[in-house]
């Protein structure tokens, strides 16, 4: 058993024994015996089922915004990127500050494909991760490590950015064509929590219920824009998509522009307003 697992279990047992939290959302080993899945520990015995390894891909802060959990004191196991979600959600007042964040020093998560042939290659987000020690957590599990150099997170954008508008339009038509509008991408995103999503609103009916080209396009344009300055880059939306639409490209594009224009990176600082919630009178942006 790794030190991380021992550390998490000890901390969670303590939190539950002291009744500091009602329950803790963490990971356990799934039924395939390999891949982790979300797990809710209510008792000190259940705390011993918690694990942490390089298959813990889910961003568990998603559970915290579920309406039925409001009013409970919850503990949650977070990787550094998940901790950025927590910062965004706290700034948006989605739950009270008394949530207990158990931050784990993250070794990186591996890619898993449905087709099997599971390699041990790190996920795209982990290859360019520059924050392996969780920021601003209540409890830290693992040895804080010195962070490596800041890597180019946006390299993946260059080929598409180099194309003409018509080529990009054709590229996205092909991608969105496959979309089933299953909304898994939305359901998995911690920052997507509206009680009524525009995509399903009937009055006015913005998108339309039909799974058609025009409808899919509008869903994707706006889903992405609703994450502008809020997406923390976990790529979970892309991972869960059953038809492999490269949503990570869209999100990355906006993260890049938000960083370039406003020097803002979602979830890294709690003392800054998200870029679309504020302005500076004197800024010109690149307008006349």
């Amino acid at each position, binding site marked *: 058993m790794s030190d991380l697992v021992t550390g998490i279990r000890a901390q969670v047992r303590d939190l539950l024994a002291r009744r500091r939290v009602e329950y803790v959302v963490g990971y356990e080993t799934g039924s395939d015996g390999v891949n982790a899945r979300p797990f809710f520990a209510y008792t000190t015995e259940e705390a011993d089922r918690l694990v942490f390894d390089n298959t813990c891909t889910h961003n568990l802060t998603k559970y915290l915004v579920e309406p039925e959990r409001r009013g409970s004191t919850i503990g949650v196991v977070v990787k550094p990127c998940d901790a950025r979600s927590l910062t965004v959600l706290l700034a948006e007042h989605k739950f009270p500050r008394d949530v207990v964040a158990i931050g784990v020093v993250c070794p990186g998560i591996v890619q898993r494909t449905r087709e099997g042939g599971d390699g041990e290659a790190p996920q795209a987000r982990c290859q360019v991760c520059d924050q392996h020690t969780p920021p601003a957590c209540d409890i830290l599990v693992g040895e804080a490590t010195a962070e490596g150099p800041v890597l180019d997170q946006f390299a993946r954008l260059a080929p598409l950015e180099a194309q003409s508008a018509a080529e990009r339009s054709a590229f996205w038509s092909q991608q969105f064509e*496959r979309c089933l509008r299953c909304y898994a991408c939305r359901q998995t995103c911690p920052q997507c929590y509206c009680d009524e999503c525009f995509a399903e609103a009937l009055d006015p009916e913005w998108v339309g219920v039909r799974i058609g080209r025009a409808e899919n396009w509008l869903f994707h344009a706006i889903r*992405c824009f609703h994450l502008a300055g809020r997406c923390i880059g976990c790529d979970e939306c892309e991972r869960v998509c059953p038809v492999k639409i490269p949503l990570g490209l869209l999100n990355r594009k906006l993260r890049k522009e938000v960083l370039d224009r406003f020097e803002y990176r979602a979830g890294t600082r709690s003392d800054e307003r998200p870029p679309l919630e504020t*302005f500076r009178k004197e*800024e010109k942006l690149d307008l006349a």
Partner: protein
Amino acid sequence: MAQSTADTPRTRAGQVEPTAIWQPRLVGFLCNWCSFAGADMAGTSRLTYPAAIRIIRVPCTGRVDPLFVAKAFQRGADGVLVAGCHPGDCHYAEGNYYMRRRYVLLRDLLEFLGIERERFHLEWVSASEGKKFARVVSEFTSQVAALGPREPPRQGPTELEAGTSNE
């Protein structure tokens, strides 16, 4: 002839010269207090500007939800103009400052999705700037006309719905 835009066969973007027949379809979101009044001023001053623009009055540019803009493009608009009070002159004090940030990011995203940045324009036009309004609309119309018709996200079912990928 109002029908002509819809009936003109569309060829690929960039290949169509602005002609007497093809006029771009433009949507303009104008704030009630400045730019809508500016458009009114253009009218009462008998200034002419291209009739290709369909004007939608909004209380403030701050009210312009990105969804309005994307919806216009989804339904086949060739260009979208947003116009409102100059910075500092917003009737609600700061709506246009929010719009300004939203605009630059939305333009970045739309461009990445394949809608040229020249098709989405933000302009400040005050109530007394009737002349400016006419000029802005003329310039924007020729700018979009030069790009040619946009290929809107094709209407119709996806492959999936048509059953081709069910095999």
